[in-house]
């Protein structure tokens, strides 16, 4: 397997790989320069500033490890790091759990192209409402006098309103799951739609049960979709701060929230340290996921 891959690559190298010059250079230069100036440089600046000396009122470009030591010896910051990882893992899991069955139905069971498109569009429509409004919409849903408590009390499931629904970690997880699960449904449904129906029919003809078909054919073939969805969800959840700010009542502090508060009080060096930690965390997660699936091949 590996031998074949290497052989292929070598062939490509000799036959069609050209030097980075000519028209390709001029077509790419603006984009590359833009990314270096406005993406790579700011990130490097963040790393640099994380070593600056922070005093109460100002920040000086004298290099020191103080901010780093403060970060890793503070319970607040380490707590935020742990909360970020925990919430990310829970939301990643819950988006797969909530999204997979819907994707399975749309991608595999609906064979009519029109209905399939309609269902996918239905999933995407909420995106046309501002992200922040979608976050805010969970408040009247989950609150003590919110819709869910109202309904549960009307049908007599609970006597007292459930207070833990809003301003808790649970509300952040519910909110994020709803907002991000579509990023899971899309790639998985796409992968499932590419499965050749005759493979499944053959398995059925040979007498395999649905459970067996799911385990040996459907699940493995849909895994690239899960990973791509996982990349989307991870990247977005790790950088989050708005959902936790709106739905947790300041009880859930993610690294993003730490950055926002530190910038708000002009503690640039601490914000930069939190930023670098977040960058490393995100880089590790994405790199790990990219090892499982090659993004360029799935396009």
């Amino acid at each position, binding site marked *: 397997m590996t031998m074949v891959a290497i052989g292929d690559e070598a062939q490509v190298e000799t036959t069609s790989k050209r030097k980075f010059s000519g028209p390709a250079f001029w077509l790419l230069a603006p984009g590359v320069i833009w990314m270096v100036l406005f993406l790579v440089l700011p990130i490097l600046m963040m790393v640099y*500033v994380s070593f600056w000396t922070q005093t109460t009122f100002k920040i000086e470009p004298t290099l020191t490890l103080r901010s780093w030591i403060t970060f890793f010896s503070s319970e607040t910051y380490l707590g935020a790091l742990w909360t970020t990882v925990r919430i990310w893992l829970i939301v990643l899991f819950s988006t797969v759990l909530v999204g997979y069955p819907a994707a399975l139905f749309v991608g595999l069971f609906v064979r009519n192209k029109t209905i399939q498109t309609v269902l996918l569009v239905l999933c995407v429509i909420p995106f046309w409402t501002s992200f922040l409004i979608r976050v805010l919409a969970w408040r009247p849903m989950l609150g003590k006098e919110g819709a869910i408590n109202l309904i549960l009390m009307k049908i007599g499931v609970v006597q007292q309103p459930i207070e833990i629904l809003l301003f808790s970690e649970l509300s952040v997880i519910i909110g994020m799951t709803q907002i991000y699960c579509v990023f899971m449904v899309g790639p998985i449904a796409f992968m499932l739609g590419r499965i050749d129906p005759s493979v499944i029919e053959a398995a059925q003809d040979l007498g395999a049960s649905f459970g067996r078909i799911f385990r040996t054919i459907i699940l493995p073939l849909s895994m690239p979709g899960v990973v791509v969805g996982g990349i989307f969800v991870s990247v977005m959840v790790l950088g989050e701060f708005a959902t936790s700010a709106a739905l947790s009542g300041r009880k859930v502090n993610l690294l993003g929230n730490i950055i926002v508060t530190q910038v708000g009080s002009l503690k640039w060096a601490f914000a930069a340290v939190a930023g670098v930690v977040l960058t490393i965390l995100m880089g590790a997660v994405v790199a790990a996921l990219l090892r499982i699936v090659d993004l360029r091949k799935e396009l």
Partner: protein
Amino acid sequence: MNATGIKFGLGTYTALFLVFLYGPLVVLAILSFQTGPEGGPQFPIIEWSTYWYKHLFGLTPPSRIAPLPIEQALVRSMGLAVMTMIVSTVLGVSAAQAFRRKFKGSGFVFYLIVLGMMVPGVLVGLGMALVANSLGIDRHWWGTAFVLHVVYTFPFAFLVMLAIFNRFDPSVEEAAWSLGVSPARTFRKITFPLIFPGVLSAMLFAFTLSYDEFSRTLFASGRDLTLPLAIYGTFSVEVHPNVFAFGVLTTLFSFALLGTYAVLMTLSVRRAKQTAIQEEA
């Protein structure tokens, strides 16, 4: 798949899934018709009214509830989204065009571009604010925030165009070249009309992403608020149903945009089909 029982079960689940997706928005829409100014952002509806819609447009008598500063913010957000759309689509199309030929370092350039949509907004926002601070540059929505919006939307435009070029038949271009048409003219007359549906999608992506983007804008935009920042500002204060009314209006606006896109798309696809038929005849 013909497993009827499983199909029925999954169908029911998908219906529930859609309820989960839409529930909050429906509740929000209902509560936007709460009576004002005393009515709060929760049930029960005391009395149905359009008070909060009037409040948004400043048509209600003054009350202690501050209006959302939407007028200026809307203009800024629209301007920013249009600028971002144009620049990122141009960058995206030209970069994808370059990727049609294999070249050394293509993997590196690919990941450099894709990195723009991967890095969380709060990180690039922070980095940009630090760069601006140390260089003594003023932060504005049309400057520091704008370049970050392009960093975010350019990769999307690039990926959309890459997918379009993957399904593109180069023989039509080669035919034009062999007939002696210049590359620039070939691109204008042949390539561009064929990839136009993709360009439209890239533009739509860029516009809507930029219009709704706030984590990049938060640190990079300085004093003047864009629309998402105005909404974010309401998070820290008491929420009133005027934000909900505003949510309903922006959703309707998005639908109008989506409708326009659908019409343009249908027209361009129809035109492409007609050209194909003419060629065959």
